[in-house]
C-alpha cells in the first residue's frame, strides 16, 4: 500500500488535498446547499423555517411587497433593490479610490532602495496587526461630531476667528467610503507593488532610449506591465467590500445599509433566515457576475511579468 502510494503521484496529490477538501465540503459546500434550500423556504410566525419551494423571498428582494397602502394587495417597493445597488456602487467606488491611492504609493515603494522598501512595506502592513473592528472604531473617533477632525478644524478656525459648526461626518455614505478605502488599501498596495517590482529597470531605460518621455514611458510600459497587480488587487478589494457589514454598521449606522447589513439583520434581528439566505445568494451571484466579466476581460492577474 505504502509502496503503491510512493509510485503513484496522483494518489499522493489526492491524499494531500483530502484534509482541505473535507474542510471545504463541511464548511462551504454543505452550508451553501443549506442556504439555497432555506432561501426557498418560508418563515413561520415564530421565526422558524418552513421547508417548501417558494419564490416569495426572491420576489420580495426584487421589489414585490405585500406591505402596502390600504386597499392594495401588492405594490412595488424598491428598498432592497436600492440596498443591492448601493452595495455594488460602493464596492465600485471603493475599488476605484483604492486603485488611485494605492498605485502612486506602490510605485514609490517599488522605486525606493531595497532597504527603504522593506521599511515602507512594513509600514503598510502595521495597521493589519490591529483588529479590523477596532480600526473601524478608530475612524468613528475621528469622524464623530466631537471627534479629532472636528476638534482640529475648530481649533484652526478659532485661530482665524471664524465661527465653526462641527461637521456631520459620521453616519454618512462618505464615512463608509472612507472606512472601506482605509480598510482595503493594503490589499491593493501589495499586489501592485509586486508587479511593479518585477519590472526590469532596463525597460524604463529602453523606453527612454527609444524616445519616450516619463509620461509616455509610464503609459506604454509601466502601467501595462503592472496591470496584473491592479487586477489581482481589484479582486481582493471588490469582493470583500461587497459583503462586509462591519464598516457600514459602525460608520454608516442606520443611514447606510448594505447587503451585508441586510443579511446580518435578517438572521439576527428579524429572525427571518429564509429571506437572509435569499439575500446571501443574490449577493453571491452578483459578485460572481461582476467578477466573471471582469476576469474575462483582464484575467486573474496571474500572468507573471517575466523581465
Amino acid at each position, binding site marked *: 500500500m505504502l509502496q503503491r502510494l510512493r509510485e503513484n503521484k496522483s494518489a499522493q496529490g489526492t491524499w494531500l488535498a483530502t484534509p482541505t477538501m473535507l474542510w471545504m465540503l463541511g464548511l462551504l459546500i454543505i452550508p451553501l446547499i443549506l442556504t439555497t434550500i432555506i432561501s426557498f423556504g418560508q418563515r413561520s410566525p415564530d421565526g422558524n423555517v418552513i421547508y417548501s419551494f417558494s419564490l416569495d423571498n426572491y420576489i420580495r428582494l426584487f421589489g414585490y411587497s405585500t406591505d402596502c397602502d390600504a386597499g392594495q394587495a401588492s405594490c412595488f417597493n424598491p428598498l432592497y433593490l436600492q440596498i443591492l445597488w448601493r452595495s455594488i456602487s460602493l464596492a465600485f467606488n471603493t475599488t476605484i479610490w483604492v486603485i488611485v491611492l494605492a498605485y502612486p504609493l506602490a510605485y514609490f515603494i517599488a522605486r525606493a532602495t531595497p532597504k527603504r522598501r522593506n521599511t515602507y512595506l512594513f509600514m503598510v502592513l502595521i495597521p493589519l496587526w490591529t483588529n479590523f473592528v477596532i480600526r473601524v472604531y478608530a475612524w468613528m473617533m475621528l469622524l464623530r461630531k466631537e471627534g479629532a477632525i472636528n476638534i482640529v478644524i475648530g481649533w484652526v478656525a478659532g485661530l482665524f476667528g471664524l465661527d465653526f459648526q462641527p461637521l456631520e461626518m459620521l453616519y454618512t455614505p462618505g464615512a463608509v467610503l472612507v472606512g472601506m478605502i482605509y480598510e482595503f488599501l493594503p490589499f491593493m498596495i501589495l499586489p501592485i507593488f509586486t508587479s511593479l517590482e518585477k519590472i526590469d529597470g532596463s*525597460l524604463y*531605460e529602453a523606453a527612454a532610449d527609444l*524616445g519616450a518621455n516619463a509620461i509616455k514611458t509610464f503609459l*506604454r510600459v509601466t502601467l501595462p506591465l503592472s496591470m496584473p497587480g491592479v487586477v489581482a488587487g481589484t479582486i481582493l478589494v471588490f469582493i470583500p467590500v461587497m459583503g462586509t457589514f462591519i464598516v457600514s454598521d459602525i460608520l454608516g449606522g442606520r443611514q447606510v445599509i448594505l447587503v451585508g447589513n441586510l443579511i446580518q439583520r435578517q438572521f439576527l434581528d428579524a429572525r427571518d433566515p429564509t429571506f437572509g439566505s435569499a439575500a446571501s445568494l443574490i449577493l453571491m451571484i452578483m459578485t460572481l457576475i461582476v467578477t466573471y466579466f471582469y476576469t474575462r476581460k483582464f484575467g486573474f492577474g496571474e500572468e507573471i511579468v517575466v*523581465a
Partner: protein
Amino acid sequence: MAAEFAVELRDVVKQFITPEGNELNAVDHVTMQIKNGEFFSMLGSSGCGKTTSLRMIAGFEWPTEGEVYIEGKPMGHTPPFQRRVNTVFQSYALFQHMTVFQNVAFGLEMEGADKSEIEKRVKRALEMVQLTGMERRKPKQLSGGQQQRVAVARSLVKVPDVLLLDEPLGALDLKLRKEMQLELKALQQQLGITFVYVTHDQEEAMTMSDRIAVMSKGKVKQMGSPVEIYERPANRFVADFIGESNFLEGTLKSLSGNEACVFVPELNAELNGISVSEGLVAGDDVTVSIRPEKVHISDKALDTNSFTGKVTNTVYIGTDTHVYVDLMGKQLKVFEQNRISRLDPGSFYTVGQEVTLVMWPDNVLVLKKD
C-alpha cells in the same frame, strides 16, 4: 554628419559612491574619439568602466567631470530620449507585453511617425534581421537569438547616428554568438552607422571592430586597430590581456631607431627587439614581451636571441601544441601550430627534451615597465 567624430569623450570622469561610502572613479579621465561609420569596441573585464562609458553616451548617466559630444554637440544633461543614439541592452529589455511588431514600432511611434510609414520601416527593419513573419509573436515565444535580433531591429529602425551595444551577445551560446558577430558586422557595414560595442570577449572585439579601446580600472590602456593592439601592445597590461605573452624583465642597453637591445638578468643574456613604448632611453627598466606563437623551436641557433632549454610540459589542444620550456629557471610558453596531421607520439616534443628557442628580433617587443 558634418562633425568629424560621431562620439567624443573629453576627459570624462564618472564618480560613484561605493556602499562603504568611498568615492570610486568608475571612469577615470577617459578621452576617446569615435569616427563616423566606425565599428568601435570598448574591451575590458567587468568593472573596467566600459559599460559606464557607454551609458554616459546613451544618456543614462551623466559625467561627473568632462563632456560627451555626439556629432560635435556637447550633451550636458540631455536626456536619453533627446539623443540620436540607441542602445541594444545586454538583457535585450524587450517589452514583454508587446508583440515583435509593437516592440520595433515603439520608437517610431514616439517620433510621431504616421502609420503607413511605421509599417514600412518596421517591415524593413525586421527583414534586415531576418525576422519576417514573426511580427505577431510575443518576445517570450522567441529563442534567445531571435530576441536579440528584435532588440537590434528596435534600435536600428530609428536610424540613429550611433548604435550602442552593451554585450549584446553575452547570453547566446558560442556558435550562435559567432554567427551574430559576423551578421552585426555585415549590418554595420551595410548601413554605415557608427557602432559602439562593449564586450569583455577579446575575440569578439577583434572579429568585429575597426578600432578597440582596451580599458582597465576606468582608464583606456590602449586604443587602436585589432592588429595594432595585438602586434604592438602599448604596455604590459594590454599584452597580457589580449592573447597571451611571455614576459621578461630587463634593462635597456641601447636604442637606435626602434631597434633595442635589452639585458635580461633572468637569462643572463642580451635580447634584441623593437621598442614599442615611446620615450625610452638607455638604462630604463623595461619589460620584454614575446607572443608564444612567435617563439620558434629550431634546429639551428642564431647568433643572438637563441636559447637552449628543457621541455617541462606539452599540451595538445588540436590546432596547436603548447610547449612549456624551462630557460634557466624561467618558464616560457611556445605555441606550435599542428600543420601536419600525425599520430606518432615520437613526432611531438617530449618532457625533458632539450630544444633551442629562437626569438626573431621583430617579435621581441620592448615595453616601458608598468
